[in-house]
């Protein structure tokens, strides 16, 4: 019985201008994990390492408990991938896309694909290049669902989508994991999406792991502290992560434990965005 569909252990990869260092996190079965970080943090590199598009320098990546390289063909039968842009030939129609993609999957289900096409209102005879971005995303999802992927890897799928389509997209994801047998790794920098659907969050910055754990622990671990400039003491300044000063006052992230000492200040619930901004400006969580 596999508890974790994805398990990264001390994974490293170096480029001339960027280094991914000792990245470790696990995605439990039946949950959605938000994989967040600012642009250039290493999210896409990590996904490329998981998919064996890049060769890692060190560490181990287990997918469904098997090594992602040694069992590449087997594990990819159960992985669905959605990137930020469509990777099907633009002259293919929706029907052609099914014919082309089904070549690669032993358990491709035509009925599921037809059902998804109907549900997503995808015009079967329309070419991929003529579909809107939202429709293209849905087509990629339809393909992923049609081979009964247990693990869905999404790399910035919602960037560029309008709010209505994004909302619809998130609903589809929630429905997808409903049976508890499927998981989603959702890489994005639009963190408001994650607040709706993610159970776990892995936050990276400049190639380093900042946080991995439950969404509740992350949002419960920080508060957003605000106050007037003259109220900012030296001690408080030391405790604030990612301090931002303006003429009007200051703002920053503070650990929930430390926040207890500053009840006279304005303390708000920190969003993932606040945490990400604070951490990327001021360093990582201790």
């Amino acid at each position, binding site marked *: 019985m596999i508890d974790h569909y994805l398990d990264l252990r001390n994974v490293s990869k170096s480029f001339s201008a960027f280094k991914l260092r000792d990245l470790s996190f696990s995605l439990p079965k039946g949950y959605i994990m938000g994989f967040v970080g600012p642009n250039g943090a290493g999210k896409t590199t990590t996904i*490329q390492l998981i*998919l*064996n*598009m890049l060769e890692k320098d060190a560490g181990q990546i287990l997918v469904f408990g098997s090594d992602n390289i040694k069992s*590449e*063909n*087997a*594990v*990819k*039968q159960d*992985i*669905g*991938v959605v*990137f930020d*842009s*469509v*990777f*099907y*030939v*633009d*002259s293919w129609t929706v029907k*052609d896309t099914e*014919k*082309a*993609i089904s*070549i*690669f*999957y032993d358990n491709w289900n035509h009925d599921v694909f037809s059902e998804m096409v109907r549900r997503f209102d995808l015009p079967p005879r329309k070419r991929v290049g003529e579909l809107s971005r939202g429709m293209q995303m849905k087509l990629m999802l339809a393909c992923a669902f049609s081979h009964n992927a247990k693990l869905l890897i999404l790399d910035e799928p919602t960037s560029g989508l309008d709010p209505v389509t994004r909302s619809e997209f998130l609903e589809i994801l929630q429905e997808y994991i409903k049976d508890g047998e499927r998981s989603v790794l959702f890489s994005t920098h639009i963190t408001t999406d994650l607040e709706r659907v993610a159970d776990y969050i892995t936050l990276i910055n400049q190639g380093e792991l900042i946080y991995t754990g439950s969404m509740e622990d992350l949002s419960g671990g920080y508060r957003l502290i605000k106050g007037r400039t003259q109220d900012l003491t030296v001690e408080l300044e030391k405790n604030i992560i990612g301090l931002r000063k303006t003429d009007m006052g200051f703002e920053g992230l503070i650990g929930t434990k430390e926040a207890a000492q500053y009840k006279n200040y304005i303390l708000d619930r920190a969003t993932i965005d606040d945490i990400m901004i604070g951490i990327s400006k001021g360093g990582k969580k201790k």
Partner: protein
Amino acid sequence: MTGFLRIARLDFFTMKSQLAAYLSLVLIVLMFGFMGSSVTLLCITGAWFVALISSNIFAIQEKNNLDRLYSSVSVGLKDIVLGRYVSVFLNYLISFLGVIILYSGFAFFQHKALELPDILLGFSISFLVFSAITGIQMPLYFKMGYTKAKVWSMVPFIAVMALVTIPSFVPVLSEFAGYLLSNQLVLIAGGMVAGCFIQILSYRKRMKRRFCVLAIILVMMLSVGGCKDTAEPDHSDTLPPVSAPSETTSSPASPEYGESALENFHLAPATEELLNKYDSFHEYINDEDGARLVIWTDAAIKDFAFITVNHDGTGHGLSFLAGDALFSVDELSPEKPFVVKLLIPGSTPAYGISFVDENGVERCFSINLSGRGPEEAPPYYLLDENGNSK
């Protein structure tokens, strides 16, 4: 289904949109067919065309981010590369079969014979040309991507085109081409082996500069050999069998004694110095204004005749038929040569000699003008049924 076959299938599916381009290959074959080109030349044209079209799959791959698709499906990198090689080769194979089918149609309506050796020769040479071009191109595309490799990928095309002309200026290469022409089996086997060798090396990405040069030279040599059998009739042409008057052009004499018969004969301008060696000679004046040539033998030749030579363009390339005897003797001995005064109108032979060889078979050689200066090569030469010259 194994991974590389899945990729090959996907490639075929992806190239569906390029089908219209293949119609131009049909048009090219039709045009060349009407012009009377040989099947070898058509096959090479087809291979050239497929090599050119094959790069489109890399363009589609780059334009549509298919790298991402490949990385998401259950195939490894080796499968992707091997699958691409397989699909491109199958592309060539289908085009080759298409060319053969089209040519068969031409051959049927023009009452030409399309024989297995012609098809094998066409396959061998075209496969080599195809292998050399795609064998160099594909590692470049895989390594650099379509846009970056686009310029470099034209190098094998240009190099092959440029190098095909070199043997005309380099006697050693010309001789080697001549050797290949007279040994079709070597040409067929060599082409196939070399083509496979290039494909395997290319797949393994051992594309060293030295290898590229070797591949291009090999292609040049073999394609020169392959093309020359349909080119204009000059000294180095592969001329199909010359037949005796009673025979058809497709029934050549046995090759085992062909060369030895030619070896017995000598042809040179009839200089005083040469004629002074003999007490007497046979003489026939065909044209008072023509060149005076002497033909002598090392062994006695029976039923020797000076004849006209007719041309036959209905078979494979241009061939000859023995025409009328203008002069004949029962025996041409080494002591008494034959002197003839004749005018050779151009590079196409009009006269020849016939005789009965030691096996009792009637043979025929044409008298040809080399067109080269006396310091380069003998101005006249004899050409036998197998394309051997002296």
